[in-house]
């Protein structure tokens, strides 16, 4: 066990897997000599060489497409998109190609590839360094989407993603790279060091895709969250003294529907929490599933607590961010109902 922040844990996952499998190559903007703008790939080029870890041209479409070609050859590319806000030039290659090649070739070819990208707000990054586009990817057949919330999961999930036979989009909440963030932005920042999930085993281990984690048990209401929002949910439940069960989904496709159903059938109330914009966000899917499958157990409508349907405004970050104040109001509503 070593204490790691999320960046170190992700870096370690690369290192562990590259040491085990020569077919893993890492590419992306600034990931080579420099080690990535968030340092996730630091040291990998020096250790594994320039033909396994290299800078890519600033062309996200090209990065994804080249990765697909490498995967078709038999390599396991792990591509970094510098910010999730910049993944869209690669959208067509992910949606129309990576997600469909196994199907359209009846299994003759497949695309085992990981597309990593720092994601989410909370760092005053403005409109184009703050977005949470997971819903787009959740709507793509053939694509798995993963969003870790702590160093232990980050390493275990990234290893699982690298070992997965299908294309995986792996979003890393950049606000919690260096420490858990619970949305109480006026409080001093806390490092991972003090956090139990920062104890990261050395070497290889897996956190399976498609398994959620119940990070807080409770009877009064179920809060479904992922990424940074898991910490917001935990802190708000404490602050409000609500007996909430908090589920960290970890993977949104495939979803751990069993964990969700069991919890909501127990609590009878549910809140879906995400940072992404509301309309047609993944919260809609979750709310729809919960009412489809737990309708007769629900004592109140499923509430969505989300970002607003506007671009992410630079200076008004804390008014925009779905933090404890927003969640607290929803908790009150769903419990009073």
């Amino acid at each position: 066990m070593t204490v790691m922040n999320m960046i170190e844990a992700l870096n370690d996952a690369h290192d562990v897997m590259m040491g085990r499998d020569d077919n893993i190559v890492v590419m992306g903007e600034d990931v080579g000599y420099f080690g990535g703008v968030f340092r996730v790939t630091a040291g990998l080029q020096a250790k594994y060489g320039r033909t396994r870890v290299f800078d890519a041209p600033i062309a996200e479409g090209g990065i994804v497409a080249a990765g697909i070609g490498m995967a078709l050859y038999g390599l396991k590319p792990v591509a970094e998109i510098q910010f999730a806000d910049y993944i869209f030039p690669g959208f067509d290659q992910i949606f129309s190609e990576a997600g469909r090649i196994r199907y359209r070739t009846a299994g003759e070819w497949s695309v085992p590839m990981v597309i990593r990208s720092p994601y989410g707000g909370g760092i005053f990054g403005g409109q184009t360094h703050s977005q949470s586009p997971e819903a787009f990817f959740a709507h793509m057949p053939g694509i798995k989407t993963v969003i870790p919330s702590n160093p232990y999961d980050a390493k275990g999930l990234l290893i699982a993603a690298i070992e997965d036979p299908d294309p995986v989009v792996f979003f890393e909440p950049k606000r919690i790279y260096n420490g858990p963030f619970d949305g109480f932005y006026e409080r001093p920042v806390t490092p991972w060091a003090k956090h139990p999930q920062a104890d990261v085993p050395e070497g290889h281990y897996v956190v399976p895709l498609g398994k959620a984690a119940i990070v807080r048990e409770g009877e009064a209401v179920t809060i479904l969250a992922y990424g940074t929002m898991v910490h917001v949910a935990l802190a708000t439940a404490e602050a409000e003294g609500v007996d909430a069960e908090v589920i960290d989904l970890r993977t949104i496709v495939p979803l751990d529907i069993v964990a969700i159903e069991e919890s909501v059938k127990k609590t009878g109330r549910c809140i879906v929490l995400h940072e992404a914009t509301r309309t047609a966000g993944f919260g809609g899917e979750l709310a729809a599933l919960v009412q489809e499958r737990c309708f007769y157990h629900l004592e109140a409508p499923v509430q969505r607590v989300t970002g607003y349907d506007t671009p992410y405004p630079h200076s008004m970050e804390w008014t925009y961010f779905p933090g404890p104040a927003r969640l607290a109001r929803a908790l009150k509503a769903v419990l009073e109902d």
Partner: protein
Amino acid sequence: MADSIERRNRPALSLHVPEPDARPGDEVDFSAIVIPEAGSVGRPDVAVAAAETHPLCFTLVRVLDEDGKAIGPWDPKLDPDTLRRILRDMLMVRVFDERMFRAQRQGKTSFYMKALGEEAVAVAAAHALDRDDICFPTYRQQGLLIARDYPLVEMMCQIYSNKGDKLKGRQLPIMYSDRERGFFSISGNLATQYPQAVGWAMASAIKGDSRIAATWIGDGATAEGDFHNAVTFAGVYRAPVILNVVNNQWAISSFSGIAGAELTTFAARAVGYGIAGLRVDGNDALAVYAATRWAADRARSNLGPTLIELFTYRAEGHSTSDDPTAYRPQGAGAKWPLGDPIERLKRHLIQLGEWDEERHGQLQEKLSAEVRSAQKEAEKQGTLGSGHFEDIDSMFADVFEEVPWHLAEQREAAHEEAKARRK
């Protein structure tokens, strides 16, 4: 700031919208097309600096002259058996296309696309490549499969989306895939295969392999961002890949001027990316073979990519959904000055004394018979019109390697829906 007054003396701006020389009702006129003499273009050593090839981006590499003689430094000097095999494969493509076109008209499938007049592009390239080099084609390189002996019945079953379709009815007709023959699955989305081929080639280089990749794209599709991504990555990493641009001068109804061919060539794109480039008579099987072989040797020697423009002409409609007389003069294809690739190679073989009209007639007969019997065979397994591929479990397979719960539930529902229907 520059004085704004003088601006007023300028002519008003106007938008230039490219138009082809002729529209329906006009006379076809190919006189503007400059055709250098066969054999007149030099052949640089495969090891030259990319820049030294750039003059070849503004001419045409040609081997076969009007009388069917092969001349000049690009003559690949192929033995008669290889020449006959290339002729046979081109003819097979034509016979097969004709037959499947008719099958679509008979309602046996939803869609078909011919390669009429462009058969040399794929067939000659296939013979110049090594058998285990990989191809990332478009829908118009069926010649690669023919040349690599893909069974006609397999092709037809895919076209019919029938019970024998290896792709389980999932793909539009002619969107073949055959890993065994290094033929990557065709995508309905134009240009996507181009940067994928570069990625495959990069992987081959990363692993110290010696196989190279070849990919094809149409003139129209070069406008996609994926074209730029492909050539950028190929140039930066000097990937062992052959980037073919099949300039048949038409997209669907829009001509190559709309893709940027009015004032330059597609081969000239090579200059701006610092890679080798060649412009080739696409209806001259020997020129296509020689250029492909030059680029393959260069790539295999770790000297990087080559962009090859294959100058040809789409002699018929874009697809079974298209009627070209709606936007270009009738019979334009027949007047194409670079002629018919099959006729030209045939003339060459005859001129060598290695072929004659009679044998040609017999070959044609034989190939038609092969196609007819393959069709009978294929139709035993059904057609899209009657007896197409239908299997609920298969519909949910291969989205992922394993079927996750949500697809399993949907599969279950689909089965129950089917039961309900049968009642």
